């Protein structure tokens, strides 16, 4: 007998690989939007209850990310953007990712019910189901509208945060949901325009692959037009105010201009300058969402000093 290893421990997962299963970058957006939903709500929340609520919303979102990596391991292996994830890299088995995702989902939902209320926990459970089953298992490989409907999963966090504080669903939380819901398609389709090889190699029916790039450019403009009234409408509710309205107006005009530029571009021109306009639009879309929710937070802070709001 020799002392040669009989298993490949070079590839054994470290703590960070389990964190990577939770998609920390997506989680940061979830944490931020859920936190804003909770903080702008008219009902004060005890800091520990608020912290626990945001933590378990984030863990629930992370758990759905782990379930996504379990189911999508085959296509993650093909796409350059995803082939270093823990499952395709061989550090964590698909079965482990599944068990990890299911266990964390259960913990997150039960703990959110105990920390906040059953409505928030129910919304979280539905979000996990929607992302892991409706989006990952069903829509993603079936329809080019995958991004549109699947975007709902990413749109729930501020609504859950609001429900954790108030125990209700109102026009404000619905509009926060719609803001992210309508923002998701232009954001991802801009990405798909300049990451073109990845999705087609993996056989994911992105709009760019099934209907062509001309149609995708038009779709980006249509959804950006639909997004503007939602963003401005949110400003007219009890959580809006002059500061938010001003910020939303500027950002939506800018976003619309970017979408019109993209719509008017020929593919050859885009290729010639390395998709400069598409990349700039994608980058701005990240700021767009961050700044809208940031403006809501500023408005809530001003309101607490008696100067914000309508």
């Amino acid at each position, binding site marked *: 007998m020799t002392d040669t290893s009989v298993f490949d421990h070079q590839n054994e997962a*470290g703590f960070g690989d*389990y964190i990577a299963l939770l998609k920390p970058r997506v989680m940061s957006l979830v944490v931020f939007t859920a936190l804003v939903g909770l903080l702008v709500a008219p009902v004060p929340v005890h800091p*520990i209850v608020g*912290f*626990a609520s945001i*933590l378990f919303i984030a863990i629930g979102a992370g758990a759905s990310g782990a379930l996504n990596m379990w189911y999508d391991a085959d296509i993650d292996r093909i796409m350059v953007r995803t082939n270093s994830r823990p499952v395709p890299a061989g550090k964590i088995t698909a079965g482990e990712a599944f068990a990890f995702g299911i266990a964390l989902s259960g913990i997150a939902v039960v703990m959110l019910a105990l920390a906040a209320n059953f409505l928030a926990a129910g919304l979280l459970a539905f979000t996990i189901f929607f992302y892991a089953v409706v989006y990952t298992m069903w829509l993603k490989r079936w329809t080019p509208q995958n991004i549109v409907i699947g975007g709902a999963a990413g749109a729930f966090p501020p609504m859950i945060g609001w429900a954790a504080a108030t125990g209700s669903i109102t026009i404000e939380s619905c509009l926060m949901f719609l803001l992210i819901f309508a923002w998701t398609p232009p954001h991802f389709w801009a990405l798909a325009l300049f990451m073109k090889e990845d999705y087609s190699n993996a056989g994911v029916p992105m709009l760019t692959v099934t209907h062509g790039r001309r149609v995708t450019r038009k779709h980006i403009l249509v959804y950006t037009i639909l997004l503007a009234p939602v963003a401005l409408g949110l400003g007219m509710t009890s959580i809006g105010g002059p500061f938010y309205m001003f910020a939303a107006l500027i950002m939506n005009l800018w976003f619309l201009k970017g979408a019109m530029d993209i719509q008017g571009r020929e593919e050859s021109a885009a290729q010639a300058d390395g998709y400069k306009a598409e990349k700039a639009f994608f980058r701005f879309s990240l700021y767009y969402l961050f700044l809208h929710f940031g403006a809501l937070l500023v408005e809530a802070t001003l309101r607490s000093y008696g100067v914000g709001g309508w």
Partner: protein
Amino acid sequence: MAISKEHEIHSRRLGRNLGLGLVLVGFVALVFGLTVVKVSNLDPGVVASEVKN
């Protein structure tokens, strides 16, 4: 015979175990904190009716 040679895998496992340990300690602390908050914020009306029963 005891294993004396330190391998990279041992430090990785130590990191994983420490990480999990910290997560568990944090979880216990959070549940404790939540319990304290929930018990101290009980609705006086609910407490009174519980006492009567």
